[in-house]
């Protein structure tokens, strides 16, 4: 920067620190938002890919009702398209993690015990060692690491495992392992743990498999081909006399969480983009301030021979310097935040963030956005500023005489009944309408996104509440094996605190489509037609009627895979190897990701064999809070076991909802932080506007002071103006947040529950933003207003 004019540019950066901080800060915030979101998305995406690759995931998983042996696994492995097959046994038991702790003893949790045939040589859905001893020896248990989020299990201690027959066994907690392909423990409130087949035998389970995991050869990539192999394998093992209860064929080639992660980051990305946009408004405003302050300097430079292009270059370089400074600040902070965000999200998904370096393409994106946005935003203000004629520049009086011509001005002029300073505040707000529009745009957008986030959060929770209402029970008791329905409900109702119990049954079904192809596995629930423990929201048709026979109701998300289904259609289902025909009478709102089918329990009994049987019992308790539900679940389990009815698992709605709330709250906190950043950008914008107003109206301030306005009066006029702008922005932002939050909650709803969320505008968000915007208005205006109040009359008479 040898030349004098570049020295001037450099000094404009260093001499006006407040302005530099405002511009650099707003660019940095925009870049930070974009960098954090894209960086976290990239890191998490890489983490998911790595987890997917490390886990060597199964293309097909089949769950069977009875055990099968190694021979059948070998037979499957020889089938065309199958690369490798593995048998496993997984069983559910009850775990007391602290049997020797006098305080914590007795706090049981469900644990899924998984036995692998060979822990050393794993080729499919691998379980990787983490800490402690691996593989577990006989009498030892190794927990999947996500268990630590639920229970603080110490290595080397003993845990108590209680089986369905009520017997208790002590196992040594040998270490922690990581299964990249497994759902994290807190998703279902159930811990995953690994034991050997010997240990499982000691606990009373047979030495056979009940899960078959299959990987297909590399050439098979088409989902339809994989489904065909799954069907072939299913038929093969059913031919061997092993009924398949359920089959899972996930989307090939990507981690199961990838879709949701992509969708969530798309929403976050949209917010990041909005913050960059808001920052752009701020740049326009600040550059306008700068040009207003420099108008005389520009005039003088032109007088002494400066050409428009030269001066344009100077100011553009100034913006570039601001941008570079902002990038220097934003890039490292965004990298840290991206790593932090990715780590938190990875923790929720039970994957590892791969590496701690943000990919170079993300840094390139930050640099591009950080340079392009301010240059684009500043282009017009600079061009307008430097194109001013010398005459206009050097005769600029600083008094805006344009007020009074438009309709708004004339209406405002009629405003009566307020104090003169208040009238001045209100009318002055509308003097520079373009600038007001820019400030309002920044504050409105910031506020709208802030309020949108609250509304989306409210809508998420309203949807979850709907889901909780849908499952109109407190405890779901899954029996080890079907039991007599009347006996089990009577026994459950004997437990103190229970008020209603309904026997349900469930089966795995395949839809046989009109073209004879099979659908993926579906869960069909058999329930009494007059069941009260489910409260479905009917979307089409109607609910089941008592004594109706083969009527069928499906949740709306059935259409994701079976789009041709309509009310009135005949539907062929293969249940327990037999085809039966049902009439689809209704479609209900889907409460969860997986589609459900509902039929009359007696009719299902006729198909599956065994009347008056229940596979599960839905229980309503007198008290609906979490501890009461947990206590009821424990009491029901103990009572049923004491009467010889084995309980495989119990689930309380509080547990299920609590887990979902935790996951959503993390999302909401992240998004709320973005909203706060947007608020800061909006506040900086307001401060910039007010600074410009003070600069431009210095002469006017002098006149007001000359006719007797005190420091306080000048301060009140400008702060009043800031509050008027803040209130306007609040009103506009509130209005804008309605459509914005509707679009966003619909989009998120499609991702999480395949339907729009229950739209629930947030009054809390509205109220909170009102408080924030007034604070921003006062704080943002105070400094320039204070400066205005300090301007001496003498100064403005000679003011340039």
């Amino acid at each position, binding site marked *: 920067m040898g030349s004098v004019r570049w020295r001037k540019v450099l000094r404009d950066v260093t001499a006006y620190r407040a302005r530099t901080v405002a511009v650099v800060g707003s660019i940095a915030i925009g870049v930070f938002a974009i960098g954090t979101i894209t960086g976290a998305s990239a890191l998490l995406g890489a983490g998911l890919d790595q987890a997917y690759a490390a886990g060597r995931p199964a293309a097909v998983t089949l769950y069977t009702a009875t055990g099968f042996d190694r021979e059948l696994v070998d037979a499957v492995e020889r089938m065309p398209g199958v690369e490798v097959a593995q048998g496993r046994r997984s069983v559910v038991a009850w775990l007391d993690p602290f049997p020797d702790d006098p305080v914590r003893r007795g706090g049981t949790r469900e644990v899924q015990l998984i036995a692998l045939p060979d822990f050393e040589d794993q080729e499919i859905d691998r379980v990787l060692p983490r800490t402690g001893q691996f593989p577990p020896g006989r009498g030892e248990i190794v927990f999947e690491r996500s268990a630590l989020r639920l229970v603080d299990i110490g290595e080397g201690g003993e845990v108590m495992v209680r089986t369905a027959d009520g017997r208790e066994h002590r196992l040594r907690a040998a270490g922690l392992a990581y299964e990249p392909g497994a759902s994290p423990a807190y998703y279902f409130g159930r811990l995953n743990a690994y034991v050997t087949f010997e240990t499982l035998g000691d606990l009373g389970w047979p030495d056979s498999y009940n899960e078959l995991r299959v990987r297909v050869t590399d050439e098979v990539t088409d989902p339809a081909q994989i489904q065909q192999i799954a069907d072939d394998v299913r038929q093969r093992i059913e031919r061997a006399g092993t009924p398949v209860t359920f089959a899972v064929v996930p989307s090939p080639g990507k981690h199961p969480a990838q879709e949701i992660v992509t969708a969530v980051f798309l929403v976050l990305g949209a917010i990041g983009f909005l913050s960059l946009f808001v920052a752009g408004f701020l740049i326009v405003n600040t550059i306008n301030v700068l040009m207003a302050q420099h108008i005389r300097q520009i005039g003088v430079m032109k007088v*002494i021979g400066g050409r428009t292009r030269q001066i344009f270059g100077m100011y553009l370089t100034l913006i570039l310097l601001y941008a570079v400074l902002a990038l220097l600040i934003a890039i490292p902070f965004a990298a840290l935040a991206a790593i932090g965000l990715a780590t938190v999200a990875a923790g929720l998904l039970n994957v590892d963030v791969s590496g701690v370096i943000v990919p170079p393409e993300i840094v390139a994106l930050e640099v591009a956005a950080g340079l392009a946005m301010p240059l684009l935003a500043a282009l017009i203000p600079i061009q307008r500023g430097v194109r001013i004629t010398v005459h206009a520049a050097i005769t600029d009086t600083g008094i805006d005489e344009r007020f009074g011509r438009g309709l708004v001005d004339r209406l405002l002029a009629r405003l009566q009944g307020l104090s003169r300073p208040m009238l001045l505040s209100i009318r002055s707000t509308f003097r520079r309408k373009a600038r007001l529009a820019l400030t309002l745009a920044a504050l409105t957008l910031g506020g709208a996104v802030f309020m949108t986030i609250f509304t989306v959060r409210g809508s998420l929770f309203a949807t979850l509440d709907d889901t909780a209402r849908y499952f109109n029970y407190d405890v779901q008791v899954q029996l080890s094996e079907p039991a007599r329905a009347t006996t089990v409900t009577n026994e459950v109702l004997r437990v103190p605190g229970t008020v209603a119990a309904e026997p349900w049954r469930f089966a795995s079904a395949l839809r046989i489509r009109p073209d004879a192809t099979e659908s993926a596995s579906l869960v069909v629930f058999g329930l009494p037609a007059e069941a009260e423990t489910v409260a479905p929201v009917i979307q089409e048709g109607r609910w089941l009627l008592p004594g109706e026979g083969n009527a069928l109701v499906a949740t709306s998300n059935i259409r994701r895979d079976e789009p041709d289904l309509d009310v009135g259609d005949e539907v062929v289902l293969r249940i327990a190897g037999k085809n039966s025909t049902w009439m689809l009478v209704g479609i209900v709102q889907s409460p969860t990701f997986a589609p459900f089918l509902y039929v009359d329990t007696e009719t299902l009994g006729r198909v599956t064999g065994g009347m008056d049987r229940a596979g599960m019992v839905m229980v309503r308790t007198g008290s609906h809070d979490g501890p009461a539900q947990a206590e009821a679940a424990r009491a029901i389990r103990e009572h049923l076991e004491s009467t010889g009815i084995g309980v495989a698992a119990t689930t309380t709605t509080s547990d299920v909802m609590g887990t979902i709330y935790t996951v959503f709250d993390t999302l909401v906190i992240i998004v709320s932080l973005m909203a706060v950043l947007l608020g800061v950008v909006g506040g900086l914008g307001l401060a910039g506007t007010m600074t410009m107003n003070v600069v431009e109206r210095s002469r006017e301030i002098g006149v007001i002071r000359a006719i007797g306005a005190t420091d306080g009066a000048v301060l009140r006029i400008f702060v009043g103006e800031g509050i008027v702008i803040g209130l306007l922005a609040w009103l506009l932002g509130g209005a804008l947040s309605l459509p914005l939050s509707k679009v966003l909650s619909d989009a998120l709803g499609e991702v999480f529950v395949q339907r729009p969320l229950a739209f629930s505008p947030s009054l809390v968000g509205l109220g909170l933003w009102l408080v924030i915007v007034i604070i921003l208005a006062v704080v943002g205006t105070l400094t320039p207003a204070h400066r205005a109040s300090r301007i001496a009359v003498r100064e403005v008479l000679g003011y340039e």
Partner: protein
Amino acid sequence: MPERPIIDLRGVVKDYPTGAGSFRALADVTLQVEAGEMVAIVGKSGCGKSTLLNMITGIDRPTEGDLIVAGLDLRQASENDLARWRGQNVGIVFQFFQLIPTLTVAENVMLPMDFAGRGSSRERRARAAELLELVEMSDQADKLPLATSGGQQQRIAIARALANDPPLLVTDEPTGNLDSATARQVIEVFARLADAGRTVVLVTHDAELAAQARRVVHIVDGRIAAAAPAAASAGGYVDG
């Protein structure tokens, strides 16, 4: 063929639109100034002095009439042509100095050379030092303008106006914002410049300054009322 006057205005009219209709600031002004002349333009506030100066410097454009200054037809020139032309041909000194506050005294003087791409960096610095010596401001070269007095700032502004060695120096109330002692110092600088053969046009209320001019042009209501040698005119000139 006689040499063309450095300032040649013929029938210049300047109208400004106002809310109450058009206001004529200059009416049919014809004025020639020869190279090396020192001319004072005087008149009451609002009579059109500054407008006339703005015409001469190309800061503003006439509504009618012809004006050729330092060889350029100002009516035909673009803003950029005018900027370049001013940089090389006209030095302007304002009443309120108009120095760039973020540049030092010497850098303010170097800025016009920078815009004109004149000389190397070293030559510019040497030229600035020479000009500051001329206005007796060498000892303040590295200070920021804010750290200097009004009179000093005006002298810096004169040095800056001379940076590209323009044949024409134009000043608007150069002593209007200065105390009488400081004003006298500034007047001396202008007198020296005129003696050295530079064309100087100054708008002033200051009778003492006007008396330094070879010719005084009186403006009344946008018209040239009289043009007389300074000695005959300055003594009787009083402005309200």
